[in-house]
């Protein structure tokens, strides 16, 4: 059954479907049952499933993460929710020392079917503590899976798979994507660990995460007018990583840019660059390039925010340099299309 849904509706639908399918699934976290319902993504769950299975918590991110772990090893399937990934930093002891280790340290006797949802990325002057994405930090820890959907279909299908997974999954949802709309095949569960080719091309492979897929598609559209053909590969899951799909694409195009929605230094883009450089060494026509956040805290003021976050323009300029092309005149182009839908303050 197909429906046209926004990204937030797709998340909501996946949660509702999993809660209906399995009474062990519950959804909790700060703000989860309030009138705003995590930007609408938890709407209706309290009414449908009651306060036992959908509830708010004290402001105790660390302990609540441990509570989720304790519930998970007892056979429940918690979905812990953070309205901003920055709050997860408070829970790093539980996530890194306990959640990621519990299966290993019991030699596989305990299972941890736990999903931690967190909203990431740019909003509207969010500043340094409401703007991160941190996938590289989480993916660095053995025992955690990290998922970053970029479309309503992927949000729906990957969230359902994440809830059914017997391992801890960090599920990162970009704030601007919440308004993205698209057809969603309901009941489709998308397996973790498979990249997706959004657009086939022959000149340059762009490996993108989360919102950067939107920017990469825009760049591809503009560069197509100059007969430059981009292949846009959405990593979709950071761990486990579908290196094979990425490598096959780069072997075809001979060029690779990693457009990661995170800091560059020691980040996911370095991991992909290393894997691609090794696997495609003889086939690369140019060194792998990396695009990501500036190596600064996120500034609040708009002009600096525009410099901090990478965009389609960053991708276009990087490709022009890589191919030795003149800079395209972008004055007639419209960028940040989803932001036009976004209204502050949060």
């Amino acid at each position, binding site marked *: 059954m197909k429906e046209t849904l926004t990204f937030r509706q797709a998340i909501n639908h996946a949660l509702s479907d999993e809660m209906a399918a399995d009474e062990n699934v519950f959804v909790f976290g700060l703000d989860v049952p309030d009138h705003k319902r995590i930007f609408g993504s938890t709407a209706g769950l309290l009414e449908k499933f009651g306060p036992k299975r959908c509830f708010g918590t004290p402001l105790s991110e660390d*302990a*609540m993460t441990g509570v989720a772990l304790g*519930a998970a*090893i*007892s056979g429940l399937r918690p979905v812990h929710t953070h309205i901003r990934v920055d709050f997860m930093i408070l829970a790093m002891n539980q996530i890194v020392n306990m959640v990621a280790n519990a299966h290993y340290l019991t*030699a596989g*006797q305990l299972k941890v079917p736990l999903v931690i949802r967190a909203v990431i990325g740019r909003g509207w002057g969010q500043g340094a503590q409401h703007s991160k994405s941190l996938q590289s930090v989480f993916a660095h820890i053995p*025992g955690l899976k990290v998922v970053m959907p970029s479309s309503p279909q992927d949000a729906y299908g990957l969230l359902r798979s994440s809830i059914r997974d017997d391992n801890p999954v960090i599920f990162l949802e970009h704030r601007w994507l919440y308004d993205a709309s698209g057809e969603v095949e309901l009941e489709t569960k998308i397996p973790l660990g498979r990249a997706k080719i959004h657009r086939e091309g022959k000149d340059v492979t762009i490996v993108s995460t989360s919102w950067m897929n939107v920017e990469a598609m825009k760049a591809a559209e503009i560069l197509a007018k100059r007969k430059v053909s981009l292949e846009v590969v959405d990593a979709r899951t950071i761990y486990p990583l579908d290196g094979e799909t990425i490598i096959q694409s780069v072997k075809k195009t001979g060029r690779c840019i990693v457009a990661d929605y995170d800091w560059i230094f020691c980040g996911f883009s370095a991991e992909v660059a290393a894997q691609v450089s090794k696997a495609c060494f003889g086939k690369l026509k140019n060194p792998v390039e990396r695009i990501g956040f500036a190596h600064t805290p996120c500034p609040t003021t708009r002009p600096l925010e525009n410099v901090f976050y990478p965009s389609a323009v960053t991708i276009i300029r990087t490709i022009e340099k890589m191919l030795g092309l003149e800079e395209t005149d972008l004055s007639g182009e419209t960028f940040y299309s989803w932001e036009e839908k976004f209204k502050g303050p949060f």
Partner: protein
Amino acid sequence: MKQTHSVSISKEKALGIYRKIYLARKCEEAIRSEYAKDQMKTPVHLSNGAEAIPACVLACLAETTKTFGTYRNHSLFLAVTENTDRFFGELYGRVTGCASGLAGSMHLTAPESGLFLTSAVVGTTIPPAVGASFADWYRNSGNYTAVFFGDGALEEGAFWESLNFACLKKLRILFVCENNELAIHAHVRDRQSSRSALSTVSAFDCHAAEAPGHLPQRIMGAARSVIEKMAGDPKPAFLSFDYFRYLEHVGVHEDFAAGYRSRPDEKTLREKDPLTHAGIWARSQGLGEEEITNVNRTVDAQIKQSIEKAKSAPFPSPSMLFEHVFSANG
């Protein structure tokens, strides 16, 4: 808080409690004599002085009780399982260990017997213990959870966050503080400004009691008093048991010469010894010398045999390094 509860139990149960305390002590003593051989390559935090606390608290609870502990978990593991093969197997890093050698002394667990998690980071198993208790609340099972931790955990935010949530949800969980007044080498007077942990905790909506941690009768009296209250008025309980840490924080030696504390006189050392009191208490429950001697002899043989087995058991193969990072379903 004075405990007036009288605890009457069967001779068989009394013998079982005595056996667990004796077992824990003798296992620690065995580690002390074997450790210098450098075959047990895992930092040990021995329970000497605290052996009676888990044995006696768990004696007041059903076998289905879920338990959580710390890196000082030997007496808890042994009280829950009495399985010295799995215990020494783990300390020697062998496949016969409770986690095939992946965990070591600081992470002994026995999920099949309800001992879920132990941790080397203070306070860290308290939140998941609350989560396990939450799961029982969610399923309306009426089951209990007991989480054991030291007095240092009272300085961790995780304890207060967990206590608050457990009280809010009226969970059937026992927060059991094994209070030796030391966090590594720092005395509680240098770490805590609360005049009384018990009264601070009592400001939350929970039951609370305390007792000396070396006296079986008093431990069970305190435990039973809160468990009885929890039956009629489900909410968490906080139990605090003082005990004397006989040995160094980590390792197998006494450390009275280190300068941060002085050696008590022999009389005090004897008076704080839970094994001595367990023997006195067991006899007061009607157990005869022969029964006690039999238990001692059986346990001694069991430990000796388990150590021999562990030493000859295989180490995990290199491929096992990667085996349990993720569960296969997913």
